[in-house]
């Protein structure tokens, strides 16, 4: 029964792009990627309780990583993907291992610094990163001799999203997910139950950072360009707001928050122009003050 639901969800999400025009297809792809990012960040922030601002930077590291390895270094696609993933994992470990041994605040600081440093490195990277202009005019190499593009490439994104959700879903409903929640709620009690608190935090951080990197690799071939402004720090906060507005700690919350905050400017811009930022801000502040459990929290209250 559960398998049927997953397959049905995949088919529905995968069929949709074939009915969309190219503009809506582009919006749809980015929406799916934001949902995947929010799901990963929800696991890190909402379930494991780690306040990190590096999630979007890892998305950028994945995107830039795969593009540089493919077109600057000239590696074949499978090796470029594995190597870019490895880079994400190693960087995540370098950040997480020292940071999680300190109090939670330091993780926020270290990851904020990493996100800033990433942008600086992109701008100053010369021919390797393409500097302020980034890298453009490349195409996804053929996979088994065929060019994957258009709605077919959207299938790749749907697959990434479904795999992300399936993995996080499985983890959340296991001893590992409970250990993450225990670490979030009360680290001392978690340790007394046999949970290795530092290790659990490092694993959660590395895993979700690697997932963000994977999403970034997929993104690299959506616009076929990567440049520093795409990976700006404001996006790190946007993911945080998506998770908070939707409802931290719940997969449904991350999905609803990502869909709502991503689509909001599209709905509001024609009506109120640039003032949509103002409504966006009010919504975030309102959510934090009035609905600490997010939109899924409100849903829970009415469905009870």
């Amino acid at each position: 029964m559960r398998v049927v639901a997953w397959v049905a969800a995949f088919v529905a999400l995968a069929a949709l792009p074939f009915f969309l025009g190219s503009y809506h297809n582009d919006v749809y792809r980015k929406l799916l990627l934001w949902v995947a990012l929010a799901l990963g960040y929800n696991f890190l922030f909402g379930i494991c309780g780690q306040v990190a601002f590096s999630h979007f930077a890892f998305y950028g590291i994945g995107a830039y990583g795969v593009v540089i390895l493919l077109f600057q270094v000239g590696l074949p696609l499978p090796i470029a993907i594995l190597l870019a993933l490895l880079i994400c994992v190693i960087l995540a470990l370098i950040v997480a291992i020292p940071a999680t041994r300190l109090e939670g605040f330091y993780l926020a600081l270290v990851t904020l610094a990493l996100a800033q440093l990433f942008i600086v490195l992109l701008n100053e990277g010369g021919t390797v990163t393409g500097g302020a202009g980034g890298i453009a005019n490349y195409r996804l190499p053929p996979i088994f001799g065929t060019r994957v593009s258009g709605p077919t490439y959207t299938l790749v994104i749907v697959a990434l999203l479904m795999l992300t959700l399936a993995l996080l879903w499985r983890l959340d409903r296991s001893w590992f997910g409970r250990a993450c929640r225990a670490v979030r709620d009360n680290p001392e009690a978690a340790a007394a139950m046999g949970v290795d608190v530092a290790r659990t935090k490092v694993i959660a951080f590395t895993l979700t950072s690697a997932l963000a990197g994977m999403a970034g690799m997929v993104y690299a071939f959506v616009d076929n360009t990567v440049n520093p402004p795409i990976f700006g720090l404001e996006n790190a906060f946007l993911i945080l707001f998506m998770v908070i507005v939707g409802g931290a700690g719940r997969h449904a919350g991350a999905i609803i928050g990502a869909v709502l905050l991503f689509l909001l400017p599209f709905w509001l811009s024609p009506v109120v122009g640039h003032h949509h930022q103002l409504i966006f801000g009010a919504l975030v502040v309102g959510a934090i003050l009035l609905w600490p459990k997010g939109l899924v929290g409100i849903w829970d209250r009415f469905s009870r």
Partner: protein
Amino acid sequence: MGPLLQVSRVTKRFGGLTAVSKLAFELRRGEILGVIGPNGAGKSTTFNIIAGTYAADEGEIRFDGESIAGMPPHQIARRGVMRTFQHNRPFEGMSVLENVLVGAHTRFGRNLFSRSAAAEEREQRAQAERLVEFVGLGELRTANVDRLSFGQGRLLEIARALAGAPKLILFDEPAAGLTRAEAERIATVIRGIAERGIAVLLIEHDMHFLLPLAHRVVVLNFGAKIAEGTPDEVRLHPAVLDAYLGHAAAV
């Protein structure tokens, strides 16, 4: 078979203060051992050293034939020593049953994606339900922990500790803050635990609660052991009456 827990010449200093001094005692399998003493006697320090929260400056602690001195708390828990907290520390965002399942953390195999993982989860869930039932929280098992009273929270602490299938449970002042009826309920549960063959170490300053419950009692004052024996022996021990109860008091 030797003693389950062996504490030998353990000393802990905080700056110039010696909180525990050359403390030694043993705990046998299935035994309920009480550690009592007035405030500041070193009970909590002793507790925290055994649980791994503090490292002893000197001395040795052996559990089940293995030295556990200086191990972090999660390593000690993995060897079969579970604890409760004096100030209840539930996992706030979870239901009663899920809290107990966190207690079973060390009972799970590491592989999450094998076929046996689902069976294991079902098995531990069933065991957790039995434990919730055992401590008398069966009707609240799906409730969020913020709905529990303080006394129910203490029962949850016990069920959570039991879920790790411990050989030894450490109780940090289990009767503190409870009504008389609630304390009696806890005492009954603790007796039931000992009957299952699980050793119990109780840190307590309430003699009325402890003496009828413990098989043996260690009395601390100023960080040192001043008496040890059955509750009846300790009750009448002159050093205990003097140090702990004051001259005029009688229990």
